[in-house]
């Protein structure tokens, strides 16, 4: 089925594709938060200043949002690296280049492991009882935890989450709710504009401990600190994260492994 290629507006594209892809997508037809295309990707690259990238772990830090453009080849890795090398300096420049290298790393792993990246690459480092599928309260942003529900809504609405939010969400589902990372991978693939087999599957495995030597997990202090207290201020939920790392380690993984010391 061939698509037409002339449109008078973005709305027209949305309506047209809604019909053409009928039955092949989830949710309602709506335009993506980012505009697809080479010119939009260049504008995004040129708008990015690595100056405050040192704060990249904070959810309100100025990260580049280049991932969807890199994923679909509208920007190449080499051109982004070259641009940053020539437009930025110092620690921020180096930190950005290091983060970009994670993507290269994941693609090299994909090249070497192929479809095995969709299965546990290593034994989990704790006795896990992961189940599938992703429960409805998570999918529908009704966990009653304001932070978790906000991550889900943001993911679904914008097709994007900050790296730290992805890590927290993954740790919440895999360790606090004991959902198999493969269900998280599929949920992210459904919604992320940058969703890709390498970075997505391998990051979930990194959190789960099947591609790292310990599971990634966080407590309330960590969420509060890196989100500028965005959700914790005034939160009345029964917070599963409000514990020391040592307590969480025992509760989540069944023993004192010394991962938090």
């Amino acid at each position, binding site marked *: *089925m*061939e*698509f037409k*290629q002339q*449109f008078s507006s973005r709305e027209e*594209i949305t309506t047209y*594709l*809604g019909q053409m*892809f009928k039955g*092949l*997508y*989830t*949710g*309602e037809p*709506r*335009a*993506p*938060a*980012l*505009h*697809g*295309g*080479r*010119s*939009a*990707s260049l504008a995004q690259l040129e708008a990015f200043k690595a100056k405050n990238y040192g704060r990249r772990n904070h959810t309100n830090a100025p990260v580049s949002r280049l991932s*969807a453009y890199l994923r*679909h*080849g*509208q920007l*190449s*890795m*080499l051109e982004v*690296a*070259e641009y940053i*090398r020539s437009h930025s300096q110092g620690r921020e420049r*180096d930190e950005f*280049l*290091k983060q*970009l*290298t*994670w993507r290269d*790393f994941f*693609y*090299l*792993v*994909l090249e070497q492991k*192929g*479809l095995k990246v969709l299965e546990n690459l290593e034994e989990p480092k704790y006795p896990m009882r992961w189940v599938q599928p992703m429960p409805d309260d998570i999918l529908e942003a009704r966990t009653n935890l304001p932070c978790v529900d906000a991550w889900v809504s943001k993911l*679904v609405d914008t*097709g994007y989450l900050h790296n730290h939010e992805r890590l927290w969400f993954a740790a919440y589902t895999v360790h606090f709710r004991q959902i198999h990372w493969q269900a998280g991978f*599929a949920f992210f*693939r*459904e*919604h*992320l*504009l940058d*969703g890709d*087999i*390498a970075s997505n599957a391998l990051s979930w495995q990194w959190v789960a401990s099947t591609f790292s030597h310990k599971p990634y997990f966080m407590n309330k202090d960590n969420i509060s600190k890196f989100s500028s207290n965005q959700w914790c201020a005034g939160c009345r939920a029964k917070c599963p994260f409000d514990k020391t790392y040592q307590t969480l380690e025992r509760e989540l993984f069944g023993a004192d492994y010394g991962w938090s010391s």
Partner: protein
Amino acid sequence: MKLVWLHGWSLSNTDPAMVAHPDAPAIFVFDKPFLEQTRMAFPRLQFMFEAALEALAERHHSRICLGIQAEEIIAFAKLHHCTTICYSLIPSPELRRTLDALEQAGLKLEVYPVEYLTSYTGQVKRFSAFWREVEHEVLRG
């Protein structure tokens, strides 16, 4: 005659296969079997479509379509009497099925290599060890 195949990792007119063959017909296919098996929210489809539109806007002969990827490419190649398919290699196992079908149909493949940030070719397992190997090359360029 050559045909450029754009896939989901190469949606730009700066794709190396596009740059190498500025006058060749070019095609992008949304793979229907993949979409039938995989839950995908609508915005991603539009994002890719917009990228494909811009990538192909200047091409004399181009097509964006929905169908079985290999079949669509073969049909478009026939239409334009193309016997070679040019594309950028990406280490995605998802492309393998299509490439096998193109070869079985007697088409030649002209491959443009993946662009990595580093020239590292060893086995990789942990990022920290990998970073120690490549840090100098990545930071220096």
